[in-house]
C-alpha cells in the first residue's frame, strides 16, 4: 500500500497544476484588459515612426486575439519554451536566472536576520508580559511596521552613507570589486530595511502564540513535575508556539524569489522585484507571465511545506 504522505503530496501536486493553469489564464486575461500594451512604450517615443509600430505589432504576434496568444504561450510552457522578452529579445529564463543570486542573497539575509531577532524578542515579550521591556518592544514593532520602507531606507542612506560615509549609498558591489566584505557592506542597509518588517510582525505573532501556550494545562503539568523553567520554555512552549509562525514563513517563501521592489529600487539592488516591475510597466508579457508562474508555484509549494511542517511540529496532525 502507498504511504499516505506520498499520496497526499501527489494529490496536492495535481491540484497545484490545475490551479497554476487557472492563475495563468486569469492573469493573462487581466493583463490584456489593462490599458496600454507592449507597444505603448513605442507609441510615445518621437523617434518611432507609426509605420514601424505596425510592423512590430505583427512581428510580436500582437495582431492575434489574446486567447490565441495565451494558448500559444501555454503550449510553449508545456514544451519547456518560456519565450523571449519583447524588449531585450533575450530568453526569459536567462533574464530570471541572472537575478537569482542577488535576490536570494538579499532575501535570505533579511529572512535570517528576522529569525535571529524575532524569536528572542517574541519570547522575551511573552515571558515578561506588560513589563516596560514588553511595552517598549510593542511600541517599537508597531513603529517599525507602520514606517514606510522608502522613508526608512532613505533616512538610513542619509545618515550612514551621506553624513557618516561609513556605508555605500546603493548597489551590490563597488564597481570592479568582488570581495566578500564589500558585498557585506552593500548588504547591511537593504537587509536591515527588508528584515525590519518581518522582525516586527513575527515577534508579535510569537508573543501572542507563546502567551496562549503558556496558559495550557500541559505547561502547568510540566512545571508541576519540577521541570526547570528554561526547559519548559524550549521543549513545551516554544515548539507548540511555532505553528502560526511556520504558516507565515511558508507563505513568505515566494517573496524570496519575487524580491522586494521598493527596497531594491531605493538601494539599486539588481533583484527580481525590479525586473518584474519593469516587465509590468512595459507590458512585457512573456517575462511578466514567467515571473508570475514561478511566484505562484512557490506560493503553492510554500503552503505545502507549511502543511507538512505542522505534522513534524504536532504529532496529532495526520494527512489522509
Amino acid at each position, binding site marked *: 500500500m502507498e504511504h499516505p504522505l506520498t499520496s497526499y503530496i501527489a494529490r496536492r501536486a495535481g491540484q497545484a497544476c490545475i490551479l497554476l493553469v487557472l492563475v495563468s489564464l486569469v492573469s493573462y486575461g487581466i493583463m490584456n484588459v489593462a490599458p496600454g500594451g507592449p507597444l505603448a512604450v*513605442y507609441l510615445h*517615443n518621437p523617434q518611432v515612426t*507609426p509605420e514601424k509600430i505596425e510592423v512590430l505589432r505583427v512581428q510580436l504576434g500582437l495582431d492575434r486575439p489574446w486567447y490565441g496568444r495565451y494558448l500559444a504561450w501555454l503550449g510553449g510552457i508545456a514544451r519547456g519554451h518560456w519565450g*523571449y522578452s519583447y524588449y531585450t529579445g533575450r530568453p526569459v529564463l536567462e533574464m530570471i536566472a541572472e537575478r537569482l543570486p542577488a535576490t536570494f542573497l538579499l532575501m535570505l539575509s533579511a529572512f535570517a536576520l528576522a529569525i535571529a531577532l524575532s524569536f528572542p524578542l517574541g519570547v522575551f515579550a511573552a515571558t515578561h508580559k506588560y513589563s516596560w521591556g514588553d511595552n517598549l518592544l510593542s511600541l517599537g514593532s508597531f513603529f517599525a511596521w507602520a514606517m514606510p520602507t522608502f522613508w526608512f531606507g532613505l533616512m538610513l542612506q542619509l545618515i550612514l552613507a551621506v553624513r557618516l560615509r561609513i556605508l555605500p549609498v546603493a548597489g551590490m558591489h563597488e564597481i570592479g570589486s568582488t570581495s566578500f566584505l564589500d558585498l557585506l557592506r552593500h548588504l547591511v542597509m537593504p537587509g536591515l530595511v527588508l528584515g525590519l518588517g518581518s522582525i516586527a510582525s513575527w515577534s508579535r505573532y510569537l508573543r501572542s502564540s507563546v502567551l496562549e501556550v503558556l496558559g495550557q494545562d500541559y505547561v502547568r503539568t510540566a512545571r508541576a513535575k519540577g521541570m526547570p523553567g528554561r526547559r519548559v520554555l524550549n521543549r513545551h512552549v516554544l515548539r507548540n508556539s511555532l505553528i502560526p509562525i511556520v504558516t507565515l514563513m511558508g507563505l513568505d517563501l515566494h517573496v524570496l524569489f519575487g524580491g522586494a521592489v521598493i527596497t531594491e529600487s531605493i538601494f539599486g539592488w539588481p533583484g527580481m522585484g525590479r525586473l518584474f516591475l519593469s516587465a509590468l510597466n512595459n507590458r512585457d508579457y512573456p517575462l511578466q507571465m514567467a515571473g508570475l508562474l514561478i511566484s505562484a508555484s512557490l506560493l503553492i509549494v510554500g503552503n505545502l511545506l507549511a502543511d507538512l511542517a505542522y505534522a513534524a511540529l504536532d504529532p496529532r496532525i495526520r494527512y489522509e
Partner: protein
Amino acid sequence: MNKGIALAGICCLLAAALLPSAGAGPAPGTFATVVSENPDNFNPYLASLLASSQVTRYVFNSLYTINYKGEWEPALATGYTVSRDGLTWTFTLRPGVRWSDGEPLTSADAKFTWQLATNKDVHITYASGFDKIASVDTPTPVSIVYRLKEPYAPFRDQIAGAAIVPQHVLGPLSGEQINRAPFNQKPVGTGPFAVSEFVTDDHVTLTANPYYWRSRPRLQRLIVRIVPDRNTQVNLLRAGELSLLASVPPAQLEEIRRLPTVVVKRYLSPVYALIQLDEYEFLRDVRVRQALDFATPKASIIKNIMKGQAEPAVSDMVPNGPWANRQLKPRPYDPARARQLLADAGFRPGPDGVLAKGGRRLLIPLWTLSSQPLLVQALQLIAPAWRSIGVATETHSASAAALFGQNGPQWNGRDAALIFGWGQGVLPQNRINWHSAYIPKDANAPGENAERYSNLEMDRLLDEADRTVDEARRHAIYNRIQELEFRDVPIIFLFWFVSNDAVAASVQGYEATTFGATPPEEWSTR
C-alpha cells in the same frame, strides 16, 4: 559558549562592514553617472528606452553629427555632395577608422545599416527616412552613394545622423538572430568607448576604445549606474559617488547648489510641456482653443511650479535653435479676452455659471501623468483658471498606459485636454504631429496627431518641407508652420523644460547645451 563566539563573530563582521572604505567616490580616470531605467538594447535600431541611448551615445558614430554648439560636423564621413535633383547623396568616408574590435570601417557597413533598418524580420524601432532610399552603392570602400525615391530634405538629419553598425558582426546573421544577438548587450562600435561589462539593473562599464578615430579618450572608464530612485541618485551625488547627475529635479536644485563639491550647469532642454486639445466637440472651434490658451496661467506655472527652471514656449521649435520663429510671442494670461472669445463663439453662462451652447455645457476634463509630479501641480493651477472663465473641468492623473491607451480619454469621442511632455529634438521634422494623415483612429493605430488637428494649408506645408532641399526656403516653410501652430492652437504650448546637470567639481571638459554635450573623449577627472 558557542553563542558567545557566534555573537563575537557577528560583531566583528558588522564592525568591519561599517569601517569607512578607503577610496570613496570614483577612482581617478573613472567617470560615473546614473540612469533610472535598465537599458533594453544596445543596438540603436532595436532600442526603445532613453536609458539605452544614454549608453549607445558613447559607442556609435554617424556620418555627420550635431555638436554641442548646434552645428553639423563631419564624423565618420569627411564630406558629401548632393545631385541637382536632390536624389543622389554621395558621402566620402573617413579613411583609417576601425571598429572597437579592430576591424576596418568600410562603405559596406553604411550599406548594411540601411539593409538592417529596412529588414522586415528585425524588431526595428528607429528607421526614420530609411524607407526613402531606393538603392545604395559602394563604388569604393570609402565612398557610399544613396539614391532616393523622391527628393527628401530631412535626409541629412535622419540618415547621415543615424548610427553606423558593423556589417562584419551582424551581416552574417538572419533577422531573427539579430533580434537575439549578443551584440545587443555587448555592441561593437566606432565611438570613444566600448561596453566591457553590463550587469542588468546594476551598471554598465565602458572602457576607452583603443582604436577610436579621434583623439584618444582621457578617461579610462565610464560607468553608467542604474538606480531607479531619484532620491537615491541625489544621495549618490551627495556621497561623492557620481561625476555627473543629469537633469536634477527642480525641488532638489537649491540643496544641490549648496554642495561645495558640485557645479550645476543649466541649459534649455529640447522638450516642451503641452496641453493637447482633443478636437471632438466644442474644441473643434478655434476660438475655444484660443480662449483656453488665454486662460492658461503659463507664466505663473513657470515661476511657481517650475521654480524658474522652464522657459516660455510658443511653438515646437526650441527657442535657441536655428528653426524657431522669433516673431511669435506667447499669448498672455488674459481671462477677459478668453471670456470675450467664448462669448463670440456663442457660449452663454448657464444657471450654475458654466458656459453652454445649444443646451450643452462646455466641459473639458484635464488629464495628466501621475508619474510627473510637476505636471500634476500644473494641472492643479490650470483647472481653477479655466473654471474662472466658465469652463467646467475635472482633473485626472493616470499612468502613461492608461492615459494614452485605448480606454483612455483620447478615444471616447469627447473633448479632453491632456498635459504631458514631448519634443522632436533640435530638428524641425514635425510631420507626424500636425499632418492630418497622422490622425490615429485608435490607441494602437499609427500617428501622433491625437489632437485630431486638420488644416489643408498645414498638410501642404508639411509635404513641401519634406521635398524642399533649399535651406532658406525650408526655413520660410517652417516659419509659416509655426505661425499656424500658434494661430490654430492644436495644442497649448506651456513651457520648455530647463535641465540642470550636477557635475562633480573634479570633472573637467564637460559642458552641456540644448544640442548635446562636449565630446566624451574630452572629459576627464582629477
